[in-house]
């Protein structure tokens, strides 16, 4: 092999390694990064909103042409930031749904399709607020977004949040159930060995089972409460609020289970 072909080969390998590294970095866009983007865009919106309020006050106070122009500009900027922030928030929610285990494929597909529709709607709405728009135009366009948000976006948000929260509770409960099975197996072994009193432990195991059952029941109640009617946008806030309370109760039961496990393990590790 002469020097030229060796140099070509080395360059080829270098390019191959570099591109594969760069590609893997692009793919590494996870929930953490998406969440950071959401926080950043929300901050930009918040700053723009503050500026909008200031300019609005000035315009209402002085009613000059200059103050009107400034108010118009601040409103346009704020609306752009708001819609962009909404899009980034929906994208973060989408990645969270994708990264959540124990969601059934149907549920995941359903939630993701709702989010995708909303994300694309806000994509197409991008830059719809024009510099030539009057205040009235801007208000009308903003009302369009408000209507969309109330009838579609909010529903997609709450459906996703409910499924994510519910799946996380389910995931923890499943892991605790598997711990319980292993503990019970060990307890049988200890009872056979007859070298440790397991009466107290057996009582706690009973309590663990009760709490796991309660958690399951609360989680089911959360879903029933949320999906009681057709998936209407009406009262979606209230329905999600109620479901959230049930899920919190389900999580509290799991925290109790966690406490019982600690007690059981401590008891097993201590001599009578």
């Amino acid at each position, binding site marked *: 092999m002469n020097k030229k072909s060796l140099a070509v080969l080395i360059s080829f390998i270098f390019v191959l390694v570099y591109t594969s590294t760069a590609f893997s970095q692009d793919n590494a866009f996870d929930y953490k990064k998406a969440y950071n983007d959401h926080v950043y865009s929300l901050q930009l919106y918040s700053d723009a909103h503050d500026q909008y309020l200031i300019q609005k006050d000035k315009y209402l106070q002085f009613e000059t042409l200059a103050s009107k122009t400034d108010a118009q500009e601040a409103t346009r900027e704020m609306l752009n930031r*708001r819609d962009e*922030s909404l899009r980034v928030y929906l994208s973060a929610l989408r990645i969270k749904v994708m990264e959540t285990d124990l969601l059934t494929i149907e549920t995941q597909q359903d939630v993701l399709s709702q989010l995708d529709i909303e994300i694309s709607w806000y994509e197409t709405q991008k830059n719809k607020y024009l510099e030539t728009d009057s205040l009235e135009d801007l208000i009308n366009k903003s009302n369009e977004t408000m209507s969309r948000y109330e009838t579609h976006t909010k529903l997609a948000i709450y459906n996703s949040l409910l499924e994510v929260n519910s799946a996380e509770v389910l995931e923890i409960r499943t*892991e605790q159930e598997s711990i319980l099975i292993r503990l019970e197996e060990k307890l049988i072994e200890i009872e056979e060995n007859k070298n440790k009193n397991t009466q107290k432990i057996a009582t706690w195991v009973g309590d663990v089972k009760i709490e796991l059952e309660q958690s399951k029941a609360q989680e089911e109640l959360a879903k029933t409460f949320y999906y009681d009617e057709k998936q209407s946008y009406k009262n979606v806030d209230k329905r999600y609020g109620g479901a959230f309370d049930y899920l919190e109760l389900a999580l509290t039961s799991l925290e109790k289970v966690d406490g019982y496990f600690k007690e059981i*393990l401590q008891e097993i*590790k201590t*001599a009578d």
Partner: protein
Amino acid sequence: METKQNNKVTENLEQKVPPVVKPSPIEVFKKTISGFLGTIKTKILAVPPINKIYVLLKKITKKHVRTVVFGFAAILLVFIILRVLLVNQVVRLNVFDPVPVDKPITGHKPSIYATDPVILEIESKSIEIGEALDSVELKKAELREPGYDFEIDFDK
């Protein structure tokens, strides 16, 4: 005769009386200080307990001093030997296997299951779940609905 004799006596006397020499200021100072110290010493020694101690101290001989020095040295030697022995004991204690520090059982005797691999594995898994419980979205609420302002109006 008598007059002659008297004159001789007077001459002799004049010859024997030394000439008056004035003391130097240093000597005067020394005398004053020693007189002063002497007075203080007398006064201090007049106090009964001090007087007794003084008498006792006067009785101390070289033999006594030697006995005390040797006694002190002997005590010091014993102390050093004891210390060396104790340090060796601590070093020997360190040779034992270290007690597991991940979850020390305080105040209770560990059972035979304290180091059981299955129990330790369950414990490790339980700790993981405990951490997962604290990081669920339900608790962190990172993705709660942001409060956007949709009601844009310029009415007074």
